[in-house]
């Protein structure tokens, strides 16, 4: 067993894990933060996307031990003081989700895109979603939601 210490959604946690444990498993099974989803076993779908030290990564492709000493943000850490994050609001307002399974990963990827500033075009948004699959929406309203959140300019950092 290995010890992994990290700060997750603003809380410091220390966990004993098998060396082979994936970060996604640590988040879901050991810390009980089940908002992060696992949708494939080949790192394609992006449902497990979280922020590791401020960058969007697929948590199924990172070993838990690699996250030792890191700061992690998951979908559960986006809302602040009971107020939804602008991307959560925008996905809701623009109907950017149906079954909701890809949504946490989509939002975390979008939060990374918007954190780097600017007002991305639709093409740039679609390109940024390259690592995230959705089977319900045809991406149309996901793009609209991200554009909507971007147009608000401020407060989009995770």
């Amino acid at each position, binding site marked *: 067993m290995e010890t992994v210490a990290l700060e997750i959604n603003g809380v410091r946690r220390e966990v004993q894990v098998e060396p082979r444990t994936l970060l996604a498993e640590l988040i879901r099974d050991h810390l009980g933060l089940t908002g992060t989803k696992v949708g494939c076993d080949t790192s394609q779908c992006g449902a497990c996307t979280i922020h590791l030290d401020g960058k969007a990564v697929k948590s199924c492709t990172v070993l838990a031990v690699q996250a030792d000493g890191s700061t992690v943000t998951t979908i559960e850490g986006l809302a602040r003081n009971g107020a939804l994050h602008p991307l959560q609001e925008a996905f809701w307002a623009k*109907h950017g989700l149906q079954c909701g399974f*890809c949504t946490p990963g989509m939002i975390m990827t979008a939060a990374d895109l918007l954190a780097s500033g600017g007002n991305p075009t639709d093409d740039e948004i679609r390109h940024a979603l390259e690592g995230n699959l959705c089977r319900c929406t045809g*991406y149309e309203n996901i793009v609209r939601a991200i554009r909507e959140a971007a147009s608000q300019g401020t407060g989009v950092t995770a």
Partner: protein
Amino acid sequence: MTTDVTEATTTDLIGKPIKRVEDPRLVTGSAKYLDDLTLPGMAHVAILRSPYAHARIGGIDTSAAAAAPGVIGVFTGKDFEHLDPLPCAWQAAGTENFTATPRALEIDRVTFTGAGVAAVVAESRAAAEDALALIEVDWEPLPAVVDPEAAVAEGAPQIHENAASNIVMDWSCGDAEATQRALGEADVVVEQRLVNQRLIPNAMEARGAAAQHEAATGEYTVWMTSQAPHVMRLLMTAFVFGIPETKMRCIAPQVGGGFGSKIYLYPEYVLMAALAEKVGRPVKWIETRRENYVATTHGRDHVTYLRVGAKRDGTITAISADTYANLGGILSTIAPGIPTTLYGRMLSGAYRIPAIYCRVRGVYTNTGMVDAYRGAGRPEATYAVERAVDLVARELDLDPVEVRRRNFIAPEAFPYDPAGILNGLKYDTGDYEKTLARALEIVGYDDFRAKQEQARRDGRYLGIGLSTYVEMCGVAPSAWIGVGGEGWGAGLWESANVRVHLTGKVVVTAGTQSHGQGHETTMAQVVASELGVPLEDVTVEHSDTQGTPFGYGTYGSRSAAVGTVAVHRSIQRIKEKARRLAAHMLETSVEDIVYEDGKAYVKGAPDKAKTIQEIAGAAALGYDLPPGDEPFLDDTAYYDPPNCTFPFGAHIAVVEVDAETGEVKLERYVAVDDVGTVINPLIVDGQVHGGIAQGVAQALWEGATYDEDGQLLTSSLMEYAVPKAELFPTLELDRTVTPTDVNPLGVKGAGETGTIASTPAVVNAVVDALAPLGIKHIDMPLTPERVWRAIEEARA
């Protein structure tokens, strides 16, 4: 009396783009899907699956696996011999079906790669998966066949003893003789072999199940990724376990998409219930994506020999389709019904075609199970019909728009009986020209043709493709679809219970199951509008056999056109009772009471009123009720539709083909749908968007491929092309509204139109682009390689 009430009622929220009430839990990650479930003492299950497409099992040695760290038990099919095979609940009507269905774990033989043969129960998922490698199976591989035409040929490996020539059923509809005669008399006959390739649904949440068993009472609770928990309970208890249905509770928690693939009773659901009993602990199994590819149902997979007769002016006089439907190595729950009732009976499309005949041979092959996938039969029918129209147009050198208009069923022809092939049903309502005209206007058809002409002179290949589809939703009248009609082994009505609590808050429980469609919002909109209460006062509950009335579940775009109509019916009766109670409270006669905007008031004296909250309170307390009335505002309705509904529309795709690489770029996509009355346009548009993406993906990118030994070559998201955001242009949507007269809401259903319509629109566009090269058809998916080869062949 009821009519008066309905007319007086506010319908403020119908047609409004209300934000979904289910979304806060989904955007924050708090919604609980199956894998988010943890039960006290829960053990984990991994399943050993067949690496061979066709093999006998000589024996299975589980001893090493059983001794592995963390392993609680290892089980094989022999441990569950007392359980019956899963039922085939929809057999093709009017012909013998030679059925073979799966067991919880196969015992002697496997007929497709991925069939489960052993299960490990362990303390952790990792320990269970580790132990799979220690199970030794004595496999005796048998010759395999994967192609449906090869499977029915002489000398093909026999897959099931009871199915000669590997034929599940040989079904037909329509008039063979009249069709043959019409083809003989036609000015032109176009013939084409069409392959409607196998697709893999790929709901983003794979399947899973968990179960617990109470030894003291013999009661099972099974959580499952299901679109139809009530049906699962019925099939498991009555057909597999042989116990009363009251001994099992089935729960579908938050479900992450289905597209048909989560309708069925799967071996793993039975297995989890049985394992929970065996080990005396709760168990959970979560499908890996790789398992999802091999062990969850696939869709489509038809080979069709199409013949279309037409007059020289483009009038279509006959359609004949001879179809081989690949149903896989073993039958899924409703497999034979999809390529028969839902395919053959829709081969008239939006057109007045006097002679239609369809023969379908359902075929076993050593491939994964095939069942309904979004659209289910109607996409295959629409593909055949819409390609047929374009082939006729090409043959006669006519504009495909012109040929469609020449053959459209006229608005005054409804209700329309398409040459008797709907077995007694009729298309309800329609105005096909209206959606076509609007779509042509949006796309700028004439301008495009001019631009295309210029592009062709410049050596560029632009194409435009149409699909003016009609489909069948709101399945179905029980008397029509049931055993005596279409062979479905049950009814297909839907249910709802509405209760107005003492506080005026409304709770709806429904037999349908939402897995992304937003029922909690749509149904609440209908309730809030009809009853005149705030939307936030309405809660919709579903997906748990304990606490919801029996219903057949969600598929075939039936939850609005059947399920929500049941809700509507309950509300009407609640309002009638509210009027009686108000009359009593206001000391007047019920005839003088009007129900409107959440109040029952005296006609002509709106100040003399009781709110629904006051009435519900009085009804719940029950101190002072009118003679003969029971306490509480509570009503359960069962709605069996008199007909299916028939949404329609016009979709237009614009593409450019790079003749050097074969790459197809989808430049524009226009969809004008008519799904009847729209309850929530935000949700309906979302359904259309997603449907289009899946249909376009079939046309251009997706396809399951087996090698000749029955190994699935496209067995992960690395090999199978689920499309990404970058591949689509902005989708251009509009709609017309032609309400159905089948139900009082006027709704037809919107869950599948996009998928059904879009596939032929895109293929027609690509073929149109390549018309100058003489290319008349390319089989899907139109990948760069296929298109490039077609171009090279045409140029040679």
